[in-house]
């Protein structure tokens, strides 16, 4: 049983010196850099004054989600993937636990869960459908995409995939290494539409991960943010070509995606 799955939109939130918009479609010319000093994720559905109530990780995820949301029908399910989750909030809680009262702020606690971002996204958009939150450590991108592909195939519905990870504050930054925030979104559907840009067929294979081709993806992956593991797929999608990308999974098998441009 194999189902054709269609890519309706894909998006990347990551630093680039090139004025290429949107970044996910122009990896071949973009140059990886760092975000400007003071850069913060700024999702439109969260009013600017309210953003301080959300972690940088959650804001990043919501911004990625809203970039692909227009390509998804209302019955879409959502898969959020993050290797490090709400690390900023975790560090604040750990600091509080050092005191004798162990006084944690209630809102901080409810926003410390790994699915804080998916929960806040569903709240921001009044989404009532299934939303899940996945961690696969360094292979979170492939694992989350696998889950989404399963849902499209077996539940016959569109699925939005959101990947996000951001650096943690000290002292967790030394044991949770990554140097650059990044978010990515991928809208998948079980039905071809005028906006479909590619067809995917997936399988599990004993094949090595596809190495990044573009200078941008190579430099981005050096930042150790697991979100960038999705870039070998985005490189194909951005080229509007046909080929295959193999993304890493935990275990002996990896996720092979045969991509046909539409």
């Amino acid at each position, binding site marked *: *049983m194999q189902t054709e799955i269609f890519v309706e939109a894909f998006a990347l939130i990551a630093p680039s010196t090139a004025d290429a918009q949107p970044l996910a479609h122009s990896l071949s010319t973009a140059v990886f850099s760092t975000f400007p000093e003071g850069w913060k994720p700024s999702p439109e559905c969260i009013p600017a004054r309210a953003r301080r109530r959300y972690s940088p990780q959650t804001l990043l995820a919501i911004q990625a989600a809203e970039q692909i949301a227009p390509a998804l029908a209302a019955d879409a*399910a959502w898969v959020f993937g993050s*290797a490090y*989750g709400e690390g900023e909030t*975790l560090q604040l*809680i*750990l600091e*509080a*636990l*050092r005191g004798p*009262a*162990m*006084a*944690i*702020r*209630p809102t901080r*606690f*409810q926003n*410390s*869960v790994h*699915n*804080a971002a*998916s*929960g806040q996204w*569903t*709240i921001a*958009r*009044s*989404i*009532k*459908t*299934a*939303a*899940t*939150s*996945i*961690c*696969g*450590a360094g292979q*979170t991108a492939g*694992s989350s995409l*696998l*889950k989404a592909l*399963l849902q499209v*195939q*077996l*539940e*016959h519905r569109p699925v939005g995939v959101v990947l996000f990870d951001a650096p943690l504050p*000290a*002292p*967790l930054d030394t*044991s*949770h290494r990554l140097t650059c925030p990044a978010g990515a979104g991928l809208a998948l559907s079980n039905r071809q539409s005028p906006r479909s840009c590619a067809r995917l067929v997936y399988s*599990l294979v*004993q094949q090595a991960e596809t190495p990044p081709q573009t200078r941008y993806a190579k430099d981005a992956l050096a930042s150790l943010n697991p979100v960038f593991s999705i870039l070998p797929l985005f490189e194909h999608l951005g080229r509007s070509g046909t080929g295959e990308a193999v993304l890493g*999974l*935990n*275990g*002996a*098998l990896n996720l092979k995606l045969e991509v046909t441009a539409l």
Partner: protein
Amino acid sequence: MTDTSSARNIGISHSALVSCLGRGRASHVSALREGKSGLRESNHLDLPFRCFLGAVEDLASLPFPKHLSAYDNRANRLALAALQSDAFYDNALATQEKWGASRCGVVIGTSTAGVEMLEQVYRARQEGAPMPADYSMQHHDSQQAVAAFLQEYLNFLGPSYSISTACSSSAKALVDAYQLIEAGLCDAVLVGGVDSLCLTSLNGFESLELISRNPCKPCDRDRDGLSIGEAAAFMIVERDSKSDLRMTGYGESSDGTNMSTPPEDGTGAAAAIRQALKQADLVAADIDYVNLHGTATVVNDAAEARAVSSAIGPAVAASSLKGAIGHTLGAAGAAEAVLCLYALQEGIIPGNPGLEQLDPKALPNVAPQCREAPLKHVVSNSFGFGGSNCALVLSR
């Protein structure tokens, strides 16, 4: 919503559960029949408040595999204890030999994984000092840490990932296990949930004023909050299973309203239950028992009663097992699914430990004591922060 036409041969071949009630099937079945609670007044951790906990005893004395000592933390010790129950480890190895390592996946639901180890290490640091160089997130506080330990220990080399949607995590993990097999990507999946007691969860729920000072009393008129527990629960789901135990339906939804409080009318939960029944091709009258999420908070129990009344009907037999094992958070979905499997096999409707006077707004058919009854289909509810709802239909 999954097309289950090819999923009906997928069954739950083996299970194991460790909680404050004991290790393995016999101790849990006996406790269910007797209506026992494993909740005890807190006697460890540095909690600045008094409460009752569902702690698993003697984990520290468990020999931990030396070659995997990097994974040694309380969550993985819970996992190890479950593997050693009811010959689960042997059954897992036999499963792996039967299908081949790369055809066997691992999906684990957890809320905090080994964060308890991170708490210890972080608190032991001098003010302003860096984290110790030998502390490894990968082995402890990564939500993937338990699944990674299990993958290495059992050599299950198919896909391995973790679901972390707070208290619905391991119910949702069961959905993934079925989907991996149904799509033909795995022949068997080790699925379950693990969460240990930790300061983050306990102090966090205390900050929300949701921790009871007494053993929790789900569905009771005088309920006043949670008792937190810990557990590890595993199942081996496989195709062509000889077991007659199945997950026949599931439903997932989001409230989309609030991070920690469900809507009063329980609409999100009801939607998940309806989806689960539809997928199982069952009607409300087919459901013999509902295992309530039943956390014993005033708001959540009332919303769930409305959800069950709306989706199944008020007369259905129901109970919460949180008074027996506590709220085991990310492990709750799997732990209570395993308890439901025991109930299906034993032909019992579990009681509702802690219940003294039924809340007039609770479902009327909730009894404190266990009853004998032939069961064919049960619903198990799991709801979590973020408005994450999951309902499973488990059948025999």
